């Protein structure tokens, strides 16, 4: 299956043939220059593209360390003409702002809580779809695949009413449950496809030994499924960390960081010294997760790119 064999963005495609390497050293100087000049336009073009892709994020960072009075008049690149203006006061202000710190904490709770729950439920259901026999199994799985495409807008109004009539409105559990439910179709799909690929001998010998299904699942299957679980967990974590619409709809005071920044956005011009560092803080965790686990991130993408 795709999730186990797909190359990651990091792994170089096997384009270089090592057998060619010694031959290259024999090339004359003129030949080298010739090759370089043929390739240079491409390299320069790509360098410009990479620059274009990096500048916005870099710009946000430098914006976030400029003093408020400066950034309201000048661009972030003024930092380079006078690096001494850099200040961490804006960050201090973010961390002294109770709304923002509690928003960060809320974001962590929602993201971690819903990721753990989703992984557990998806793995269990995925295992059932792969290795337990029950009537209507394939039909039920087709329904799950069908639910993959349901836009969450479809559920907003009824769930809003449901949450208001129960006590789930404006609570962390309410947000967690919504995210888990909407993560399930993809999660079950991913985990089922992974479990189906596990050789059945492993499973059968465990069953013959008399191990219970729960035991097989927790002791044997879950450890085997770690790569798929990592992909799923990273996806769900990033998805909820970055969510705006769900939290905006089902929360008032329970604000994750995106909603907290959103409420500052109304006065964009005058609040940029708060919005920029808060946005940058909100990026740090996803970026760390991304750079730390990019292999699994790409695998997850490849495994279920039609969501």
């Amino acid at each position, binding site marked *: 299956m795709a999730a186990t064999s*797909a*190359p990651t*963005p*990091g792994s170089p*495609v096997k*384009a270089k043939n090592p057998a060619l390497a010694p031959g290259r050293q024999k090339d004359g100087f003129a030949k080298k220059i010739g090759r370089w000049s043929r390739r240079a336009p491409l*390299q320069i073009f*790509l360098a410009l*593209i*990479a620059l274009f*892709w990096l*500048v*916005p994020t870099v*710009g*946000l960072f430098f914006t976030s360390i400029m003093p408020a009075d400066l950034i309201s*008049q000048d*661009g*972030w690149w003024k930092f380079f003409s006078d690096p001494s203006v850099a200040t961490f006061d804006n960050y201090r202000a973010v961390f002294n702002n109770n709304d923002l710190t509690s928003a960060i904490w809320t974001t962590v709770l929602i993201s971690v809580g819903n990721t753990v729950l989703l992984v557990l*439920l998806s793995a269990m259901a995925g*295992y*059932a779809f792969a290795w337990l*026999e029950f009537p209507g199994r394939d039909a039920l799985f*087709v329904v799950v*695949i069908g639910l993959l*495409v*349901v*836009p969450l*807008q*479809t*559920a*907003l*109004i*009824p*769930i*809003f009413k449901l949450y208001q009539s129960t006590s789930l409105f404006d609570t962390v559990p309410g947000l967690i*449950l919504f995210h*888990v439910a*909407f993560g*399930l*179709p993809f999660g079950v799909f991913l985990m089922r496809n992974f479990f*189906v690929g596990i050789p059945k001998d492993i499973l059968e010998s465990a069953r013959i030994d008399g191990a219970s299904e729960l035991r097989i*699942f927790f002791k044997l299957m879950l450890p085997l499924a770690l790569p798929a679980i990592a992909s799923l967990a990273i996806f769900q974590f990033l998805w909820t960390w*970055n*969510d*705006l619409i769900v939290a*905006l709809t089902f929360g008032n005071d329970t604000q994750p960081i*995106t909603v907290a*920044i959103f409420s500052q956005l109304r006065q964009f011009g005058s609040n*940029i010294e708060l*919005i920029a560092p808060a946005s940058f803080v909100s*990026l740090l965790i996803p*970026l760390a*997760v*991304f*750079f730390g686990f990019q292999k699994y991130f*790409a695998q997850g*993408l*490849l495994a279920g*790119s*039609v969501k």
Partner: protein
Amino acid sequence: MSHASSSPAEGSGAKAPDPQRWGRRLTTAVFLGPAVVMLLVWLVYPTIATIYRSFFDKTGDDFVWFENYTAIFSTDNLTTALQNNALWVAVVPALVTAIGLVLAVMTEKIRWQVAFRLAIFMPMAISLFAAGVIWRIMDDKDPSKGTINASIGAVQDALGGSGGVLTRAKASTDALTGDLRTGFVLKATVQGGADPVFLGLTGIPPAQVPTDAVDANPQVEGPSSGAIFGTVWRDFKPGGGEAGVPEAGELGIPGATVELRDSGGKVLQTVETKPDGSFTFEYNGGPAKVAIAAKTFEEPFSGVSWLGPKLINPAIMIAYIWVWAGFAMVIIAAGLAAISREVLEAARTDGATEWQVFRKVTAPMLAPVLSVVFITMLINVLKVFDIVLSVAPASSQDDANVIALAMWRTSFGGVNDFGLGSAIAVFLLLLVLPALALNIRRFKREQ
């Protein structure tokens, strides 16, 4: 994937009296139950409820048949949303796929492939909302603040060679009064044939001094009588110097517009300064005032209004493409890597050019991957929401409206019309349904 039909439980499952049957059912329920319950409560029930609700009016009391649906096509701000979303569908998936393909092919053989792909891919980790904030900074209209407009201005300056603009000039002494918007006026009144008029400016970075400037002449002389003359210059000398008097080593400011005004402030004459900053008015009348006109300090390029109503859609799309191009590139690169080297080599050996190899071999073999990327982007684009909310300022949000945003604003943004909101949600669901059929077909084929 084909293992599913051969799962081990199947063989023993058919026997009629099975003592373990209930135990197995219980196991299945334990494994599957929580997920099924959640899907029923949070997805299946709400979908049905939304469809039902979409046939009722705002209060929910009156059954209105398809009125909410016809309203989608007849309400101004909703038709804008439809048009915009149509534009998104027409432009973005194709562009993202094309950019992803180009980048994947181009980076296939470069040495710093890993670094390059990480850079392009990185925005995928960032929330679309934060990406919107980032691009709001990029898109600022003021060229001294917005990155894009600053770049455009810099390119224009380089091409046009118009020199700098004295955007932050100040009067060097308090003999002058005024500011950048009004121009600087010499407080004292002047008369023809008298001493030279010195109009000193500071706060001009070297980069803003016009390139044809030469040193100001300290001993500027006028044509004896019948004239008012003087110098506009950069009254700044490293290491000090006297303010208000041109000294050796201080540059004149060429091209500044100087005005001669009568006592009522009416402009009598205007001249432009020479390379050494000197100017002369032929003048024989009564007492007058001399001023550096505001025009001197005007910005030649005032910035493209990316976030205004006209360009807001392209501006948001650029931000969105910036986020998603990495996704397309990674998926397509994986597809490229899977193409057999031998096939490509065989084509090259047969004398095909690189372009022919790409068109006749690579592209057809990539077609399935390209269609996956395209369809994924199509669905994403139909649901676009967060980035519109964060890039578009409140004043342009109506012009940038899209279906998902319209659904939210109708239902929760103050209007609180759950009937119409439900109808928009159902409409959105209908738009993505073809993808559902596609998913199911893919699954069936794999079985």
